[in-house]
């Protein structure tokens, strides 16, 4: 690289990422092939909440130990092979981020880390936010997550170094001719279903309650030679959770009352 990349200033509010030449791409391929030493990572904070940083440091702790793959976090961009951009790129942190990109020696691999780095996350439409590190620098790997777990971080690093392949693919669906939604719990009357869901959610909270009600209605709706009581006992024995036992006993009472009333 004879001439440094020109930093294009944002025009009409639209940021322009730094362009990479073809020579640069070739060099990057060469780096991945011929790297015979540790890959040094420098973490660039572009205005994040620090959640991502905490997970990056969790990834280099003994439990996950990214350093056994030679991934080492360094303190200066001048030592770095991989730049890890976290945060949604705020107006104030845009120039420091570009400066650290310029400071890193070529060829370098840029990784967009976390939901904010990939597309702005929950900050994507704020006035002072560029919305993603790909708006300022060319990105090679995107690691989504808020924040990504240490395991996801290690997977992302391995992808950036070309050790593991990509699993996720874009998908597209177009509504078919006779596509119809499968009704949930067709065997249970709607009124009873509402009663049970309400009680389960009252006792266990919105999400867990819905899960418990779903399990219970599944048992209630299936027809089998065994009695309902026996099947519920079997389910409770399998889960062996006193809290669940209490909730399900309550649900049983409600359903027997409702069935007796009809």
């Amino acid at each position, binding site marked *: 690289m004879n001439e440094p990349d020109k930093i294009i200033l944002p025009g009409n509010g639209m940021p322009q990422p730094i362009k990479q030449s073809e020579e640069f791409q070739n060099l990057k391929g060469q780096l991945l092939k011929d790297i015979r030493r540790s890959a040094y990572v420098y973490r660039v904070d572009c205005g994040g909440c620090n959640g991502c940083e905490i997970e990056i440091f969790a990834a280099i702790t*003994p*439990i*996950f*130990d990214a350093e*056994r793959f030679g991934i080492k976090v360094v303190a200066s961009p001048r030592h770095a092979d991989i730049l890890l951009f976290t945060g949604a790129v705020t107006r104030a942190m845009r120039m420091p981020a570009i400066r650290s990109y310029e400071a890193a020696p070529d060829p370098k691999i840029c990784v967009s880390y976390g*939901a904010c780095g*990939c*597309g*702005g*996350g*929950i900050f*994507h*439409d704020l006035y002072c936010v560029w919305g*993603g590190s*790909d708006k300022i620098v060319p*990105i*090679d*790997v*995107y*690691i*989504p*997550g*808020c924040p*990504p*777990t240490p*395991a*996801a971080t*290690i*997977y*992302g690093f*391995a*992808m*950036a170094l070309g050790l*593991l392949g*990509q*699993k*996720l*693919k*874009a*998908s*597209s*669906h*177009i*509504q*078919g001719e006779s*596509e*119809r*939604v*499968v*009704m*949930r719990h*067709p065997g249970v*009357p*709607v*009124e009873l279903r509402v009663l049970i869901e309400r009680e389960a959610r009252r006792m266990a909270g*919105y*999400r867990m309650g*819905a899960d418990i009600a*779903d399990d219970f209605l599944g048992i209630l709706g299936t027809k089998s030679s065994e009695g309902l009581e026996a099947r519920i006992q079997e389910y409770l024995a399998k889960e062996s959770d006193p809290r669940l036992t209490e909730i399900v006993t309550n649900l049983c009472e409600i359903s027997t009352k409702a069935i007796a009333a009809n």
Partner: protein
Amino acid sequence: MLKLFKTILKTGEATLKYPFAPMPISPGFRGKPEYKPEQCIACGACAIACPSNALSMSANVEAGEHTWQLFLGNCIFCGRCEEVCPTKAIVLSQEFELAVGNKNDLFQNATFKIANCTCCEKPFAPQKEIEYTADLLKQTGMSAEAVEACRDQLQTCADCKRKQSMRATDKVELTGFMQKGNEA
């Protein structure tokens, strides 16, 4: 020195084997939202609940299509879409290996047909949502014939319904609540 070795032996190896062995994941882990387009009624509840607008719905009225889109890059894995989904079309899975090289791979979309209002012929609601309502009515105990009889009503937009109820003035009871009070 010997004491140190003893401690090391007792502690064993703390480091997880991942990525050479599968990662142990606890139940309730919120990973990639797994979407079943066949089960989706395109009601848009998830798009309203999504705090980071990773889920969005857009209508193309000319083509009569309603498109659901998930941009995983913005997803914060909060699970609100799972909470609000009436048909369990979207459920958070245990999948966490989501890194991609190409940003386009973070997008998922599904296109649904919009049904027109039977009265004014304007685009009204996703076809699958209307079918789901009919199925739900059947589940509440209405006979299939009765549901078929009110199908026109199901597929009429709010504007047309308002106009129709104004036309049938003999059915409008302005003093209904007063009469109800007298009876009690």
